[in-house]
């Protein structure tokens, strides 16, 4: 350095000193950064690694296959079918509208669905599939598959959906499934995450609802890697769920179909129970509906048609419907009297056409009276006065207790919706509910199954099975769950005097097989298939004095909804009971004229497990029965394809 500026030396020294200071501070700060880095990356590494994994990994649920439902012979009642739907992915489609327009030329698309899809697309991420059409047929799916290059972003997606191949036959037993609603979720405490899967199906009514937990199964899980906006990058691993349990019912598809077909358009119910083990072979309610409509989402007009029909197709009348049992209740009164020792089988009462009780006349259905009647005769000819007399001696408490032993007034434990308990009135009940004292007239009314007494067709079938066997037969609808046999309902002995039982059974035999019997017209003549029954005709109105004066007593003169209910119960064969049947035809007018022929056909169908030979019927009925069999055969489901698909 030859020349130096005046203060260069000093300035340089000062700069150097401060530079060292500043440089030192800077390097010191870098040291702090390194220390911070060490803290984050070494000391807290595990914690942050976990957070990064949580960011990255998402659990997705795999819906399990719902358990299927089969009949006692393994024929399908409810199954899962592949359901195709068409989805569109915005970012793959590019020009969404052009792609949809091309798709609409290939397969039918609902404009409302397109609008909904377009608005949904605007709201959601571009890589999410949006449903364009649901329940697309296999033909349409293959059309799309062939045209894939022209339809970017369009993918057919397959899921499982419930299908009821027998359509109307099991609507009231199995019920149906539908997508989970907010209402469903609100009812369930701590709902399974599965239920939050869009379009997940849950049992809504009937067995599907009651056995929901067993049928549903448990969800599988899929761990996927997602990015910050939720796009799935890849699947990391997958654990399949547990499919729901398969349920085998005690019902017989063919018999159930026959029952539904035989009831036809009547507003009616029929229950067939196996007396040996309580198996419900058929639980029919008519008219019925196609549960598949509900699975798909029923249209407003279809739904309105169902709810506004005065025959109430949505009601499961066999278990939910309760009716005055009418004269079918007389066996209970007879047994109560006999067991209480108040009468012997040979004791008689005199029927003069009416009985006067506390200044009120209670008429027998036969105005002229039956004369001297014992228990057998009283049942055979359904003499009302005999039972008025008997009941007023036995008292309502003993009658109700006997009714309970026979399965009336008790809610049977079945996996069905709204199983009715019916009603067997007592003094205490009337005091509690009506705040009135029990009157002798109430007992008289109850003796012929009128007044307060109410029973469902199911209960009447159970009652008949118990009378037929003397055992505490309990109804059973589920034969096995996932192959595990459920307890039988054959029951213990009721402890009734066998002689009393056989008197009542004999009375029922006479109803069907004696010329004087009310059910003689609907008898079975095959010697080893003889049936024992009891008719019932229950009033749904009080006959007013004015009507009586005007002579309006014939049901045919009344509007449908005011006619009497027709009831019939029977068991067969008489010598070795196998089945018990109860039939109720709402507003059918006459038990022996309307309900009995239906019950006989069903009984024979159950005993022969198919169409019975015509010679089981009385000769005069055979032509009509042959024609009827022909007609109902046409309604039978074609199960050959089902059987094949199972094999």
């Amino acid at each position: 350095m030859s020349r130096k500026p005046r203060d260069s030396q000093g300035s340089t020294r000062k700069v150097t000193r401060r530079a060292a200071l500043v440089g030192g501070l800077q390097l010191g700060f870098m040291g702090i950064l390194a220390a911070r880095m060490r803290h984050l990356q070494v000391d807290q590494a595990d914690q942050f690694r976990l957070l990064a994994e949580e960011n990255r990994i998402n659990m997705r649920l795999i819906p399990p296959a719902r358990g299927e439902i089969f009949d006692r012979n393994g024929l399908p009642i409810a199954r899962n079918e592949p359901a195709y739907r068409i989805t569109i992915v915005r970012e793959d489609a590019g020009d969404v509208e052009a792609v949809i327009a091309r798709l609409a030329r290939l397969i039918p698309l609902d404009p409302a669905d397109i609008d909904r899809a377009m608005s949904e697309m605007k709201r959601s991420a571009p890589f999410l599939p949006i449903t364009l059409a649901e329940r697309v047929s296999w033909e349409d799916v293959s059309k799309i598959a062939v045209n894939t290059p022209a339809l970017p972003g369009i993918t057919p997606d397959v899921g499982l959906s419930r299908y009821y191949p027998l359509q109307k036959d099991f609507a009231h037993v199995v019920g149906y499934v539908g997508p989970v609603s907010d209402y469903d979720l609100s009812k369930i405490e701590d709902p399974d995450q599965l239920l939050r899967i869009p379009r997940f199906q849950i049992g809504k009514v009937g067995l599907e609802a009651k056995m929901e937990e067993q049928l549903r199964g448990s969800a599988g899980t899929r761990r996927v890697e997602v990015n910050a906006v939720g796009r799935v990058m890849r699947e990391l691993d997958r654990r399949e769920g547990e499919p729901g349990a398969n349920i085998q019912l005690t019902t017989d598809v063919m018999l159930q179909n026959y029952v539904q077909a035989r009831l036809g358009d009547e507003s009616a119910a029929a229950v067939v129970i196996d007396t040996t083990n309580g198996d419900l072979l058929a639980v029919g309610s008519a008219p019925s509906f196609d549960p598949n409509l509900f699975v798909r989402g029923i249209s407003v007009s279809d739904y309105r048609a169902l709810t506004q029909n005065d025959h109430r197709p949505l009601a499961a009348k066999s278990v939910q419907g309760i009716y005055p049992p009418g004269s079918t209740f007389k066996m209970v009164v007879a047994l109560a009297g006999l067991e209480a020792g108040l009468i012997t089988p040979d004791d008689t009462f005199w029927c003069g056409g009416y009985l006067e009780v506390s200044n009120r006349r209670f008429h027998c259905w036969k105005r002229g009276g039956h004369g001297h009647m014992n228990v057998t005769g009283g049942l055979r000819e359904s003499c009302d006065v005999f039972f008025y007399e008997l009941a007023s001696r036995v008292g309502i408490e003993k009658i109700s207790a006997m009714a309970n032993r026979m399965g009336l007034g008790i809610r049977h434990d079945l996996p069905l919706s709204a199983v009715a308990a019916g009603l067997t009135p007592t003094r205490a009940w009337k005091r509690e509910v009506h705040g009135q004292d029990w009157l002798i007239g109430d007992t008289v009314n109850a003796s012929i199954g009128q007044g307060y007494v109410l029973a469902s067709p199911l209960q009447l079938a159970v009652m008949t099975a118990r009378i037929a066997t003397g055992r505490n037969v309990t109804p059973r609808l589920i034969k096995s769950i996932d192959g595990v046999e459920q307890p039988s309902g054959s029951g213990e002995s009721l402890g009734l005097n066998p002689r009393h039982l056989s008197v009542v059974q004999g009375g029922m035999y006479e109803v069907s097989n004696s010329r004087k019997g009310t059910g003689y017209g609907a008898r079975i003549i095959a010697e080893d298939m003889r049936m024992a029954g009891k008719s019932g005709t229950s009033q749904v109105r009080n006959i007013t004095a004015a009507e009586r004066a005007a002579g309006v007593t014939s049901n045919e003169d009344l509007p449908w909804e005011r006619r009497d209910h027709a009831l019939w119960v029977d068991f067969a064969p008489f010598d070795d009971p196998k089945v018990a049947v109860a039939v109720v035809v709402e507003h059918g007018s006459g038990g022996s004229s309307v309900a009995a022929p239906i019950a006989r056909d069903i009984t024979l169908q159950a005993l022969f497990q198919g169409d019975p030979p015509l010679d089981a019927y009385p000769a005069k009925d055979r032509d009509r029965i042959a024609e009827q069999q022909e007609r109902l055969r046409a309604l039978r489901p074609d199960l050959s394809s089902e059987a094949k698909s199972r094999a």
Partner: protein
Amino acid sequence: MSYLEYAVKTTPSGFRKVFYLNWPLALLLTAVASVGFLQLYSVAGGSFSPWAEPQMKRFAIGLLAMFIVAMVPVWFWRNVSGVAYGLSLLLLVFVEFFGSVGMGAQRWIDLGFMRLQPSELMKIALVMFLAAYYDWLPLRKVSHPVFVMIPVIIILVPTFLVLKQPDLGTAILLLTGGGAVMFLAGVHWAYFVSVIAGAVGLVWAVFQSRGTDWQLIKDYQFRRIDTFLDPSMDPLGAGYHITQSKIALGSGGWTGRGYMQGTQSRLNFLPEKHTDFIFTTLAEEFGFIGSVSLLALYALVMVFCISSAMTNQNRYAALLTLGIATTFFLFLAVNMSMVMGLAPVVGVPLPLVSYGGSAMLVLMLAFGLVQSAHVHKPR
């Protein structure tokens, strides 16, 4: 001090200058930039486009510019310092009035081949002008109040303009960088002590102003401070950046998750992963070892600059080198503090590593000045 004071014999001239370049510094800069290329390639999912390739081209241009600037004698740069400052100020005013009206809320001017941010330019021009000022000012007048007020105004005018854009990060950088040059030039301690005390008072005032009519900073800036102080307060909203950034850093561990294996960056959980938050991708993929290595590279850059300055007898050259080094340090300190959750999120890129043309080019020009100072050192 003027160019006449240089003895021609002691200063390299002509082609010989190449041998006097600070080659280790050039190599270090290339190494730092290469870390950037590596991460930009990774962030793009193993692809040179859209970031790594343009960044490499820009660096090449920047390197060339650095050499050209280095060849020009440092006294020329001293003489144009005022012009550079004036021009930068004009451009700042230009974007203030025309940038916001004509081009939306943009802070840059489109030059065709690149977008120029005047605020970037100003960071260097300010340092140049302050260095020239203190070179001109006799040392005994340095702490004279009048001569302290002049550089304060020189610093505050561009700072105010940048703050209006609003660009808090750059404003802090200008203020601190300018202040550092003043400190290095030897301004009396007392000034700095009182300014720091004043600043603390101002911060207190800012917090007091919250929610009142005379609120001093914008709501979103308040929210940034809130989330900085407690990122968990709003993990999916404003705190998202800091939380995700810390997760990425922390999950790196000692050795990282492997190159291109960082889930936070690969799955887009990291915000602005190719610009301001690029350090987190490095930390995630190469762990503590990787991030400390980059820090060490930066430290070496600083050491080479400071040692070059400390051996430089030329006051302008020394102040310029130190000022640029300090600005460079401020860049990386603010950026790293931000991604590590030590400072609120302000838009400051990681120097030479973050994707971005303006910042890269301006930094390389600045290092050109450092090189020029080094080459033309009186020996």
